């Protein structure tokens, strides 16, 4: 499980330390990955999206948030992952 956004590594480390997060965060500073995964909008920057990639590197699930005001809860993620099994 990985978080990706366009801030730099220092910002991510501060964020992780502040909240003791256990999800590693990746720094996508030039937003290329967000663009490659269509999770980029010029206005909002990185959009909120959840993408599940399976063992063969195939996308098995994706959920894009239009506004980014909500997020997939743990239960949502769990349900999505269970469906793949």
């Amino acid at each position, binding site marked *: *499980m*990985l*978080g*990706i*956004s*366009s*801030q730099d*590594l220092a*910002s*991510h*480390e501060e*964020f992780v330390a*502040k*909240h*003791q*997060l*256990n*999800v*590693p*965060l*990746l720094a*996508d500073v030039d937003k*290329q*990955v*967000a663009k*490659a*995964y*269509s*999770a980029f*909008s010029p*206005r*909002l*920057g*990185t959009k*909120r*999206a*959840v*993408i*599940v*990639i*399976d*063992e063969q*590197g*195939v*996308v*098995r699930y*994706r959920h*894009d948030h*239009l*506004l*980014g*005001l909500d*997020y*997939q809860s*743990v239960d949502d*993620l*769990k349900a999505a*992952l*269970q469906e*793949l099994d």
Partner: protein
Amino acid sequence: MLSAAPSFSCVASRVMLTGQRPSRSSLPSRQRQLVDQPVRRGRVHEPPAGVRERARVRDLCAARPVAVAGRDERPQHRPAVGVDRDRLAVAGGGEESRCGSLRRPARRVGRSARSRPCPPASRSAVAGVATFRARDPRRAFADVAALRIEVRTAASRAAVRPRAAFDVGIALAATVGVEVSAGALLPHDTSSAQTIATAVANVRLRPRASMLRCSTAWGLGAAPVMLLARRSRRATLEDARMARTPQVGEQAPDFELPGTAGAFRLSEHRGERVVLLFYPGDNTMVCTKQFCSYRESRCRLRRR
């Protein structure tokens, strides 16, 4: 606790019925008055709550109310402060017709503690989920250029602030799929026992696809709703233009990024299931909540 919250209803009236608005000069001066006039003397204004109008860079929020004091003063012959008369083109009261009403359900304290917080300005009145009582809001608002929104209450007037009218108006607009481009609180007749506030707003129909859920709108107050309305429309159009790739079933593009747990290359993790969480920014409200919730139930996800 139920009795502590005043119940109020909001009546939205269409102010303009035709697409072709008459120019100001073509109207007799009597008709150019705003619908809520005449205004009685001796009332107390709240500063008009307005929405920044993008096109003209005119800050309605900053507009000051007309000071009403003396017996001879006749503010009803002036445009209401903050209302852009050219765009509003509010005509006489005869042309309006009621197109719907909002009724705020009584707030239950036990449940609202769980819901998202409201901004202080609107907390007194704008909380809960509204139901719009028109049969077909889209049709009801099809030819409306401006809305007059009146907040009425049967309870103590002191309990509801006039500013609530504007918040309610915005919420209403979001509910039925119209976009408010400019608006202001109007001076209203304080001699009426029921009406506590009146607002006028320019409205424009928005595509149905970008219609917001009312509960969201009511929870957030006026200004963010505006923002959301605009953003959501843009986002919808954008999404329609470009298909989202990779879609389910397609190969995920490889990447390598530095991260807090060292560099990560996707192709090195074949044989594992990877969940990518794209998020807008560190230390923003929703993102923080999201990742903190994942932190707390990481083990639950593992155990699946």
